[in-house]
C-alpha cells in the first residue's frame, strides 16, 4: 500500500513542481532526468532555462559568462565595449529571451527584446548574395551605415490551406500561416542582384547544448547510417562539413542547417563575436563584407582600421572561456507530469504514430573533456540531430532543417512569454507545428490528423511534459 501511495504522490509530480534540487527524494524514472543526472534541474518556474547544471564546478566563472550573455554591448572601450562598427544586435539575450527562442513578429525591430529573427539575403539557389554577411547586419555605429535599413524589412504572414482544407479527420478546423519576407530595394545600401530573395530564421534555445556536445560523433554517424538504410525519413548528415575549433571537419549538430559541429566552435561561440562584432583572439577580424567596407570608403568614411578585415581584440580569451563555461553548463529542466495518465497516453501515441523516427528520444553521452560531469549520461532531447525535409510551403533558405530538440518546449511560454515553433516561428501552437510536418513526415502528420480530439490533446500534453 505504501508503494501505491507513493506512486500516487509521484503522479502529482511532487518534486518536479519546481525547486532547484537535483536529488529528489523519490526515485523518479530516468525520463524525468531530461539532461541526465548531472545536467538536469527540477525547476518549472520562469527561470527554468537559466539554471546551472549540477556538473558545473566553477560557479563564479558560470556567473561571469552569464553576464556576457545578458549584457548589452556598447561602443568604445571599457566594460561591455567593442560593439560594431556594423552589427546585428547589441546583446545575445535580445534574441534569446529567458534563454529560450525568439518570437514570431510582424515587424522586424532589432532593438526589441525577443524580436530575434536572423535575416538572410540570398540568391534563388540559396547562396548568400555576396555583398552581405550570412546573417544580415541592420545596425551600425555612427557615422557608418548598415548594409540594410531595417525599416525596409517586411514580414507578411499569409494564411495557408493544406491538402485537407485545414480540417482534422473529425471535422475540427485549424489555421496555418507562413511568412513571406521582402526588403524594399530602397532600404538596401549595397549592390544586390535583381532576383534577390529574403529568408528569416528564429533562434534556438541555449539550455542543454552542452549535453548535445557530449554525444559522441560516432553515435550520430551510426544514426545517420541507420536512417539512410531505412526506406523513410532518411535524415541528412553534413559530414564532412562543419569545422570544429581546430579546423577539422566534423558532423554538424548545431543550427537548423547543422552547420556547426562542436560547441567550442558552435553557434553561441560564433554569435558572441558576429552578432556584436566584438573581436577576440580566436576571432580577431571584422564580421563585414568587402562590399560594405568599400561602400563606407566610397562615402568618405574612415576604413583604415578595417584594412585586411582585422581589428584590435576587444574581448579576452579568459572572458570567452567564462562564456563557454556558462554556455555549456546550462541545465535542462526536468520533465514534468510524466506519470499523469493523459501524458502517458500522449507518450504512447508519440511513439506509435512515428514521431520518434526523427525525434529520437534519448542519447547517451560519451566522455566530455570540457565538462567531465556530463560524461556517460542518458539524456532525452528528442532529436536525431539530422536534417529532414518537411515539405513546407515557402520554407525559405532551409528546406531541410535539423530535427528540433523537444526538451523544455512545454516551459517556453512561461520562460519567454511566447511559444512559437519551427525554424521561422510560423507555428503558433504544438498542433500547428505538427500539421506543418509534410514531406518526409507526411505519414506522421496524417496519423495525427486521424486521431480523436482527446488523443491529439494527450499527445500535446506529452510534448508539454518533456
Amino acid at each position, binding site marked *: *500500500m505504501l508503494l*501505491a*501511495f507513493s506512486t*500516487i*504522490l509521484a*503522479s*502529482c*509530480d*511532487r*518534486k518536479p*513542481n*519546481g*525547486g*532547484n*534540487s537535483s536529488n529528489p527524494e523519490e526515485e523518479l524514472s530516468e525520463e524525468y532526468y531530461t539532461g541526465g543526472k548531472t545536467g538536469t534541474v527540477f*525547476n*518549472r*518556474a*520562469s*527561470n527554468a532555462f*537559466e539554471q546551472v547544471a549540477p556538473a558545473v564546478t566553477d*560557479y*563564479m566563472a558560470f*556567473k*561571469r559568462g*552569464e*553576464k556576457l550573455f545578458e*549584457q*548589452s554591448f*556598447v*561602443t*568604445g572601450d*571599457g*566594460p*561591455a565595449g567593442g*560593439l560594431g562598427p556594423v552589427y546585428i544586435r*547589441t*546583446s545575445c*539575450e*535580445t534574441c534569446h*529571451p*529567458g534563454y529560450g527562442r525568439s518570437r514570431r513578429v510582424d515587424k522586424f525591430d532589432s*532593438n*526589441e*527584446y*525577443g524580436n530575434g529573427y536572423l535575416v538572410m539575403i540570398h540568391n534563388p539557389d540559396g547562396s548568400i548574395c555576396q555583398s552581405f554577411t550570412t546573417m544580415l547586419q541592420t*545596425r551600425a*555605429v*555612427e557615422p557608418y551605415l548598415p548594409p540594410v535599413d531595417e525599416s525596409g524589412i517586411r514580414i507578411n504572414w499569409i494564411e495557408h490551406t493544406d491538402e485537407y482544407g485545414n480540417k482534422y479527420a473529425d471535422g475540427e478546423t485549424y489555421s496555418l500561416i507562413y511568412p513571406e519576407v521582402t526588403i524594399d530595394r530602397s532600404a538596401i545600401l549595397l549592390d544586390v542582384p535583381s532576383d534577390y530573395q529574403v529568408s528569416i530564421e528564429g533562434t534556438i534555445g541555449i539550455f542543454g547544448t552542452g549535453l548535445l556536445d557530449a554525444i559522441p560523433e560516432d553515435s550520430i554517424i551510426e544514426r545517420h547510417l541507420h536512417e539512410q538504410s531505412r526506406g523513410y525519413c532518411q535524415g541528412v548528415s553534413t559530414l564532412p562539413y562543419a569545422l570544429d575549433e581546430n579546423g577539422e571537419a566534423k558532423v554538424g549538430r548545431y543550427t537548423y542547417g547543422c552547420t556547426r559541429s562542436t560547441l567550442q566552435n558552435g553557434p553561441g561561440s560564433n554569435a558572441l563575436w558576429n552578432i556584436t562584432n566584438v573581436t577576440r583572439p580566436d576571432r580577431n577580424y571584422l564580421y563585414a563584407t568587402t562590399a560594405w567596407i568599400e561602400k563606407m570608403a566610397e562615402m568618405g568614411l574612415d576604413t583604415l582600421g578595417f584594412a585586411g578585415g582585422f581589428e584590435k581584440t576587444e574581448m579576452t580569451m579568459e572572458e570567452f572561456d567564462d562564456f563557454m563555461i556558462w554556455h555549456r553548463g546550462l541545465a535542462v529542466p526536468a520533465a514534468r507530469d510524466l506519470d*499523469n495518465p493523459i501524458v502517458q497516453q500522449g507518450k504512447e501515441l508519440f511513439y506509435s504514430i512515428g514521431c520518434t523516427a526523427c525525434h529520437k528520444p534519448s542519447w547517451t553521452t560519451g566522455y566530455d573533456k570540457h565538462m567531465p560531469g556530463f560524461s556517460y549520461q542518458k539524456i532525452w532531447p528528442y532529436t536525431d540531430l539530422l536534417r529532414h525535409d518537411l515539405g513546407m510551403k515557402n520554407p525559405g533558405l532551409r528546406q531541410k532543417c535539423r530535427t528540433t530538440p523537444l526538451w523544455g518546449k512545454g516551459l517556453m*511560454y*512561461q520562460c*519567454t*512569454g*511566447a511559444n512559437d515553433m519551427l525554424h521561422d516561428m510560423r507555428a503558433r501552437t504544438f498542433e500547428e507545428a505538427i500539421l506543418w510536418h509534410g514531406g518526409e513526415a507526411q505519414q506522421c502528420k496524417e496519423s495525427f490528423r486521424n486521431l480523436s480530439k482527446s488523443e491529439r490533446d494527450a499527445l500535446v500534453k506529452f510534448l508539454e511534459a518533456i
Partner: protein
Amino acid sequence: MKKLSKKLILLLIGVAFICSFAACNGGKEDIKTDDEEALQKIIEQYVNNTVIRTYRLLSDNAIKLHQACEALQANKTDANVQAACKEWISAREYWEKTEAFLFGPAGDYNLDPQIDSWPLDKNQLDQILASDIIQGIDAEYVRNVLGFNLKGFHAVEYVIFRDGGARAVSDISDVELLYLVAVSETLAQDCILLEASWAGMDGVTSEKREILEELELIPSRNYGNDMMMAGQAGSPYKTVQQACIEIIEGCIDIADEVGNSKIADPVNTGDVLQVESWYSWNSLDDFTNNIVGIENSYMGGMEGYRDASLSEYVEKKNATLNAQIQAKIRDAITAINAIPAPFRNNLHNTEAAQAAMDACDELVKILSQVEDEVLQ
C-alpha cells in the same frame, strides 16, 4: 492497532488518489486543502500588495522624475537639478525593489532592458547630443529608435548626477536637457506599462491609462490575474505551489545576482567601472533595496501593508526555518550596509564585500529550502 480491512485500505487509497488528483488540478474540483487556501491568499497578497504596489510606487515616482526633469529644463537652477536627483533616487529605490520579481512582463515586454540597461553607451550618446537629431528628440524617438544602452535610469543619471551628487547646473548643456526630458518620459511610460501589465488596464489610474492608450501600449496579458488564478485553466501556474515557487525563485535570482555579480564582479576585478551606477554612486542602496524586495516578497506586501505571507506559512510548517530566513534577510541587509560607501571607492575592502557576498549566498541556500521542504 487493529488491522485495517482490505476494503478500508482500498477506500483510503481511493481518497488519497482523489485528493492528490485534486491537488494536481489546483483545486479545480473545489476540494481545496487548507494549505492551498493559505497559499492562494499569499499569492493574492503578493500580487496586490508586493508586486502591484511596488510597481505603482515606481511609476508614480518615475512620473515625478519626468516632471522634475521638465521643471529643470524650464528653469535651470541647481535646486532643480537636486530636485531631479532626489526623484531619481526615489524612483530607483522602487525599481530595485521590483528586481525580486523580474519574471513576467519585465522580460516579456522588453521592459527590463529599456528601463535598466547598463552600461550606458556614452560614445553614442555624445554623438547624438552633437548631432541634429537632438533638436527634434522626443519620447517617441527614444522609444522607437534608440537602443537599450541609450535610455532608462542610467541615461537620466548621466545628465543629472556627477561623482555621487547632483551635477552643477552650469555644466548641463541645453541639448542634454532635451535628451533628459525625452528619456525620462520614456522611462515613466515604461514603468506605467509594467504596472498595467500586472494590474490590468483597469487597475491603473485614468491618467496612466490614457498615456498607455495614446501610445497603443496595451498589455496583452494580465500577469497579476494569471498568477492569482494559479491552479485554474489558463494560468501558466498549474498549482498554487508552483506560483509560490515562482515567488521564491524571483528572490533567489536577485539574491544570487547581488552577491555573485553586482558585488563580486567589481571586487574580484578591482575595476571601478564594473560598479553599476557610475554617476550617482547609488549602488549600495540599490543592493539593499534588492534585498528589501526579497523581504517584501517573503513577508507579504510591504512595510505598512503586511498580511498573508510565505513567512506565516513557513512558520506553521517549520518555525525554525522561518526564523532562519528572516535572520538571513536581515543579515544580508546588515552586511551590505557594512560595506563603506560609496562602494566604488571601497573595492579594496574585500572583507566587508566578502561578508556581503556570503550573506547573499546564505540567503539563496535558505530560500531554496522553502521550495524543497515546504512547497513540495
